[in-house]
């Protein structure tokens, strides 16, 4: 990649378009990219997610505390870097115009930096069920029917529709993010239809991000896998039963990671979640209007807008609101087995920690019994009881780099 003009490639969505895999590859190939003049500034795999939370001041189950200052740090790394830099996270799609203005300014837009926007897009026939599933994996307990009714309501009120449209309404996202950019600097990457070559999307990303000719390690799982219809129903039922008592900090590792991603997503032979046939015409009409708008605006399309047409309605629709109970119960058995095995692992860890703790306590007690410890303790008490002694202790603590507390 040329290192002449400074360039920032900003990938802002949409969710469920291979973004997790892309970010996984970019993160694990940071050094190789750097050798080719491309910076992917991240000291942890979710660095850009945290930066996006920070930019949008978005609480996220406690993670926001780790995000404080992340955007400025990321932007500074980008400004410092020569050549090109890549930023990628799909929740950036929901940013407001003011937040986008701040983001672009901080990256040097208008001050010699050429900002390119990348939006990867997939047909609504697949995106709508994927979004409901993602909501369920984030503790939502509303039925698929209610979700569909809410997103079809033109008023778009409430948490679910505002988020859905914020991250999925492609023309609006492009309008907000591309407001100050040349159409030629806005790149729309289309996700190939189901059944196509698995490498095709990656080749499109390579083109969009200028990764051609760079030998990247592409191993690793394609993370954020999807669930079947019955499996999603099971997670929704677990949410309804446990939401009130399970703290957010535990939900993510236990339900989202252990149950959904590591266990239930491996059940690949059960019916997949799909768009109901009666919602299909509405979704495809909407999709066609979006496609036409993208074409009209003259953006750089990487792939084929025909990819966004979406598959025809499924013939055997597996309704997650009226599931095959035998499938839900077999999914529940798999989930229970996973929880048992994980619990056993934790019991082993706990026993080992207990043994370590006991050994540490014994060592500590031995240390307390040493005469020198008792002498030091007595000396501190005596010094603290007098004015001169307090000054001595203060000087000693300052020398040791402590403001207060024990000697």
């Amino acid at each position, binding site marked *: 990649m040329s290192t002449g003009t400074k360039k920032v490639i900003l990938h802002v969505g949409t969710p469920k378009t291979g973004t997790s895999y892309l970010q996984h590859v970019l993160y694990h190939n940071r050094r190789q990219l750097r050798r080719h003049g491309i910076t992917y500034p991240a000291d942890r795999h979710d660095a850009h997610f945290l930066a996006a939370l920070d930019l949008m*001041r978005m609480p996220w189950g406690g993670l926001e505390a780790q995000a404080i200052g992340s955007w400025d740090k990321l932007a500074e790394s980008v400004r410092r870097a020569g050549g090109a830099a890549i930023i990628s996270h799909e929740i950036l799609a929901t940013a407001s115009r003011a937040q986008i203005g701040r983001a672009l300014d901080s990256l040097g837009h208008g001050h010699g930096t050429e900002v390119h926007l990348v939006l990867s897009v997939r047909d609504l026939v697949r995106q709508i069920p994927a979004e409901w599933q993602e909501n369920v994996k984030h503790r939502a307990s509303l039925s698929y029917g209610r979700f569909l009714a809410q997103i079809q309501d033109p008023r778009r009120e409430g948490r679910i529709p505002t988020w859905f449209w914020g991250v999925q309404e492609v023309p609006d996202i492009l309008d907000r993010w591309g407001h100050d950019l040349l159409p030629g600097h806005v790149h729309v990457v289309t996700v190939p239809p189901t059944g196509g070559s698995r490498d095709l999307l990656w080749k499109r990303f390579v083109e969009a991000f200028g990764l051609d000719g760079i030998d990247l390690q592409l191993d690793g799982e394609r993370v954020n896998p999807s669930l079947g219809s019955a499996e999603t129903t099971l997670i929704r039922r677990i949410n309804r039963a446990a939401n009130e008592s399970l703290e957010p900090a535990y939900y993510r590792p236990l339900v989202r990671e252990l149950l959904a991603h590591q266990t239930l997503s491996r059940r690949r032979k059960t019916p997949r979640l799909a768009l109901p046939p009666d919602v299909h015409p509405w979704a495809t009409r909407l999709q066609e209007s979006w496609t036409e708008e993208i074409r009209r605006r003259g953006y750089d399309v990487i792939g084929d807008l025909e990819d966004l047409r979406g598959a025809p309605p499924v013939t055997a629709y597996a309704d997650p609101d009226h599931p095959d109970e035998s499938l839900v119960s077999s999914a529940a058995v798999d989930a229970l087995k996973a929880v048992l095995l994980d619990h056993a692992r934790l019991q082993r860890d706990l026993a080992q920690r207990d043994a370590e703790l006991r050994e540490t306590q014994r060592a500590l007690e031995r240390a307390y019994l040493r005469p020198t410890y008792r002498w030091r303790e007595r000396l501190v008490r005596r010094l603290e009881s007098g004015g001169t002694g307090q000054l001595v202790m203060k000087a000693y603590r300052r020398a040791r780099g402590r403001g207060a507390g024990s000697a």
Partner: protein
Amino acid sequence: MSPTAVQEIQREHEARAWGWVAHLRDGGTTPWSAWGSLAGADEQSGRYLPGAQQLELLRRLNLIRLPSPELADRVLGASAPGRGRPDLGLVGVLPDSAFGPPPVDPSRLPADELVRVATALIAEDVVAAGDPLEPRTPRLLRRRYRLLGDPDLTDVVRDALVADGRPPGGRRATVVVTGTDVSSMLVHVWTARSLGAGVRPWPEWLAAQARRGLPDRIDLPTLAAAWVPRVGAGRVHVVLDDARRASRLVGRRRRVAPAGPLSADAVELARRTAPVVGTLVAPERRTALMRHRLRPVLAGWPGPDLDIPRRYRPWLVEQTSALRRRLASGDYAVHGVLPAPAERRGVTAPDEERVLALAMQVLLGPAIGTPMAEQPASETGQREAQ
């Protein structure tokens, strides 16, 4: 109509909107629906039109009192934090579009939308007020204690002790569990969580407690019983409805002024603001800032107390009886008697319009963190209403 004519009309609509922005910046109060003028239309003061929420919030502020130009700029440049409706367009500015959220008449926006924008600014002000003073170095010789139970009774005493170099904890500590009537304790716990780690809206939270049982923090017998094996029954005291005695047991002889009570709407505003503060500072700083910077400001504004709906009365009575019975069977000292659930004579839920009114007063008031003695008689930076 030709495309050129359509574009011309669109430009005129947009110019009218920019004129309204200029009008609001100048302290105007005309609603968008009554704004027909092109005055100020050439004053495009930004890259994009601010959202309807921001514009309407500024208009409402202008109706109360003229904000400083800096505050007006901040309102127009603010983004509503967290999840929720995006910045909305003004109805009648852009041609009907198949994309984006439907444009709105700003005066019809629910108060909740404006509160959301206001919390972004209040959160910034809370953080700008700076951290409370560091407590003094812990004393080596001090009474060891732990103070648990009702947050309204414990927090102020603990804060005073910590500030005086007497942090809680330590071996052979005297454990004091404080409590008062169950309905007050529930309000106090919700208030404390609103100022801290966050909590669901009052009606939802209360319903969840009624299903699950009392929150751990005010489950007085369980708290006391948990400490008996650790420090011995002789060091555990449950003190009911007697803040003075609780203070003395933990070594505080001088009276500690109770925290100023917060109205239902004030707690709700704190509840909405705390998560935004949490995106700016670490959790422990958030709680300290909320309690020591925002709470005193909110306590200065009158409003109805928070009450518990009457339908929960049987549950409150039942919980009170259960607590009394369990406290009586404990092997620790119990000072006083758990009072019957209080009739608080307030509102059973905050009101969004009143919360918005309070948020605007906070924004228009003296800088958060300004000591009362230093506050000017009339707020600085305000311009004369036009």
